[in-house]
């Protein structure tokens, strides 16, 4: 079937199998930040934003995102011009193996879009579906709270 989607602001007209999962379609289209961890919606490594909502792309059929807008970590920034959240994850050491980072970043981007001044509880709540086995769940919370402050101050950088 034909799938019309906007990925990171760019229009795509993809030919996909009707029973394909979104994660596979995205990875095949070159968006390798989308990681497959558990394939059953438990770990959050595959999280992408679909029409403003972060969801697990491993348990959504690609056919369900017809005419939707998708944001993956590639759409946030790149090594030369990282998003403030990406920069903050690095600065706070909330990345080690990095496998969970793209999904976690999407979850917290969605949080800050809705709630620019989150509390620690808000951040924990937003990340409740993103497992991270390396860094221990503290550094990423500090990273998000810090990034939120930087964005609030309007420090130079990509929003």
């Amino acid at each position, binding site marked *: *079937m034909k799938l019309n989607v906007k990925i990171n602001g760019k229009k795509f007209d993809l030919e996909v199998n*009707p*029973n394909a*999962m979104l994660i596979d379609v995205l990875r095949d289209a070159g968006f390798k930040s989308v990681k497959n961890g558990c394939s*059953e*919606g*438990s770990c*959050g490594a595959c*999280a992408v934003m679909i029409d403003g*909502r*972060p*969801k*697990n792309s491993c*348990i*959504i*059929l690609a*056919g*369900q995102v*017809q005419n939707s807008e998708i944001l993956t970590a590639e759409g946030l920034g790149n090594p030369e011009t990282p998003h403030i959240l990406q920069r903050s994850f690095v600065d706070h050491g909330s990345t080690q193996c990095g496998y969970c980072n793209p999904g976690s970043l999407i*979850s917290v981007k969605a949080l800050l879009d809705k709630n620019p001044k989150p509390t620690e509880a808000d951040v924990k*709540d*937003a*990340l*409740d*579906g*993103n497992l991270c086995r390396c860094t221990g769940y503290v550094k990423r919370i500090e990273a998000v709270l810090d990034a939120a402050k930087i964005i609030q101050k309007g420090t130079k950088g990509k929003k």
Partner: protein
Amino acid sequence: MLKKLTQFYYPKTVEDACSQLANAKEKTSVIAGGTSEALRNDSTIEALVDLSKIKELSFIKSDSSSISIGAATPVQDIYKSDLSGVSGELLKTAAGKIGSTLLRNAITAGGNLVALFPWSDLPAAYMVLDAEVVCRKGKPKRTVPVINLINSKPASFLTKGEIVAEIKVPVFKKGTGASFAKMSKTSNDYSLITVASRITIAGGKIEEARLAVNAITAQPVRCEEAEKLLVGKKPDAELLAEAAKKAVAGLKVRKDYRATEEYRKEVCEVMIRRSLEESIAKAGK
């Protein structure tokens, strides 16, 4: 995997969706949040009608007598809503205990009910709140108690071309309290035990009692024997302990490799007792 799936339909209205389903020539099913459908192994389904983009199915409304929730409303919206009162707070608590943010953004108020998995969290809450379900077949609709839908299994209760469109929950009078609790290995794991209760107290005695469990059983059930025991009596520790014992004794426990039947029964009894205590404490406020 849905091996034979070839077609997706994207209706814009409930009427379109119902007529699509009613006139389907190929084996057609509905999909909304998609979390269970995506993991389903079925080699007969050829087409899916996607309800997730129908705007009239996604809403949360409340007035002085009831709360209405569209069937395709993501449960995250319930969790983050400003619903209040006994019914509103209970729905928010139950919705917030479902999976994770990423899952709650997909799972819907109606899907969690219609799919009716043992681990679904909302059905027990709907049951103790005496929820009603609005089923639509195009324009025609029927409003039925949620317990009827659950007891006769949604798949056989709904006729061809009929969908669950809305869940309605009454607002309760003063002197009512409700509680929802869930036990699972981790907060994201499937429920091992789900307990919901609602108690109305008048003149120092229990006037109305509702108690429902899920996950420990194969489908959500009301513990009617225990409810009967409670009604008309003064709520004291002895009575609640007796009601909890009675409720658990009447359960047909589902097999689950995560924990033994004995363990889950013991925990369930404690959870029920505490749930009743909490409901009663809230009713007194």
